[in-house]
């Protein structure tokens, strides 16, 4: 039971981080960044390709590469399209996602690349008659620490206040002096950092990295930000957490019927959206893009 709860919390936490990464960019640009999936993938590839290095060095390298990729995404593609219609932005992000998948395929091949990332993670801890895998425990602790750090950043720093304001109404935020380019770039960096953490957590559980490695997580994280309230950063994290917890519990409870986990998950999502169409933490405000 404890293992089930811990798994649910750690998977929920991982989805919360992914949703927050997507929500940060959506907040400042009204952009659903499908290419977030490829940020998770590049983080995982970097870890696999540098697995001969000490784990912390490899991870820091992965954070730098992923953040850099996120900034380049913003500078080279999204900044140039900032005034474009939402549909164009959406298609551009989808196109970028597909393009990067092809690039990964060219660079790393279509078959999964694997490596043993921190083999000690698969070990188990026994506590009061309950065995918990190191990976579950570390993931749960890591996500809690990260979510608390994000909470501090969003609520207690000037940057966080600017991000929340920009998410609610970027136009007014700019009229008060919030620098659009600066804030958007920083949001992409943070989104990249979170993608690196998500990639690392995923690759520890499944060290088989292929070009579409981050896709599943990204789609469900998008579901998370919709049910949490697309205009709310805490809502994004909460929505992602709920999706992860539901998915984890369904996978455990359904046993052999786990192939239907997604069906049940989306049924739950529909119910949540029927009750709260704007999402759990949405205030029903209509937002304007940059």
């Amino acid at each position, binding site marked *: 039971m404890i293992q089930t709860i811990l798994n649910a919390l750690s998977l929920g936490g991982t989805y919360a981080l992914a949703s927050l990464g997507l929500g940060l960019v959506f907040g400042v640009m009204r952009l659903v960044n499908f290419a977030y999936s490829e940020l998770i993938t590049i983080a995982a590839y970097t870890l696999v390709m540098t697995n001969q290095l000490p784990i912390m060095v490899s991870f820091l390298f992965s954070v730098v590469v992923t953040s850099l990729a996120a900034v380049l995404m913003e500078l080279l593609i999204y900044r140039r399209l900032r005034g474009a219609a939402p549909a164009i932005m959406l298609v551009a992000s989808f196109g970028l996602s597909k393009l990067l998948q092809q690039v990964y395929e060219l660079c790393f091949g279509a078959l999964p690349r694997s490596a043993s990332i921190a083999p000690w993670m698969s070990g188990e801890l026994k506590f009061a008659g309950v065995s918990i895998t190191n990976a579950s425990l570390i993931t749960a602790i890591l996500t809690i620490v990260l979510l608390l750090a994000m909470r501090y950043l969003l609520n207690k720093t000037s940057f966080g206040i*600017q991000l929340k*304001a920009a998410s*609610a109404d970027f136009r007014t*935020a*700019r*009229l008060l002096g*919030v*620098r*659009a380019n600066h804030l958007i770039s920083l949001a992409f960096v943070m989104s990249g950092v979170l993608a690196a953490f998500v990639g690392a957590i995923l690759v520890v559980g499944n060290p088989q990295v292929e070009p579409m490695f981050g896709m599943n997580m990204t789609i469900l994280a998008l579901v998370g930000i919709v049910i949490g309230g697309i205009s709310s950063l805490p809502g994004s994290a909460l929505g992602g957490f709920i999706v992860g917890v539901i998915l984890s519990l369904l996978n455990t409870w359904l046993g052999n019927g786990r192939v239907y986990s997604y069906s049940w998950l989306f049924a739950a999502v529909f119910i949540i959206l029927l009750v709260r169409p704007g999402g759990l933490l949405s205030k029903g405000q209509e937002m304007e893009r940059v």
Partner: protein
Amino acid sequence: MQILEIEDLNSGYGKVDVLLDITFSMKAGQCFGIVGPNGVGKSTLLQTIAGAIKPKSGSIKLLGNEISGRNPEDIVRSGLALVPEGRQIFGGLTVMENLQLGLTGRADKKTSHQAIEHVAELFPVITTHSKQQAGLLSGGQQQQLAIARALITDPKVLLLDEPSLGLAPNIINNLFSNLKRILEAGTTLLIVEQRANLVTKFADEILILREGLIQDRLNKIDAQDENKLKKAYFGLGANE
């Protein structure tokens, strides 16, 4: 000294022209009112000056420096702030967080603390409700916060878009007496207001906007003459 100079300003949305060849200038410490029917471009004018809308052509100079086409975040740092229509406070943030956002646009960060104290003198709601969620304030309190937030950016020119919108008469009187104090402290005010009589009391000049053009200008004395104001407002000619 001219603090704000607008010359042949054209602005609008896409192919739609809303403002046509707007020209006027203001001296430091003056107050101008802009009145006119709905949909004539009053808010567009303020938003264009503040940088929220890029002008199609023309010049906007603040303290002699061209600001036309610059980003709103740069314009606010140059000393021009806008209190937008409908207040647009951040309801999910606290009163103090709303003010902290105003500090973002302040060129001189060292005097931030004094700035908060200064606006708190004008608008006590800042002190009494500092930790309250701004969305829970009353309409009048939200308007006070919106003006305080703009003032904290240390503007030389303050633009106000329909400050009386949705407020009770006693709140409006209080609000305009505060605006008078802000004016007396040396801040230049440009106020868009549907209720013309509110601005005519202390504006140095009233600009009548119709169909995107400044159709008439009334000085302080003429603006307080109700007949002249009505004629100008409805396009019958101020001097008929």
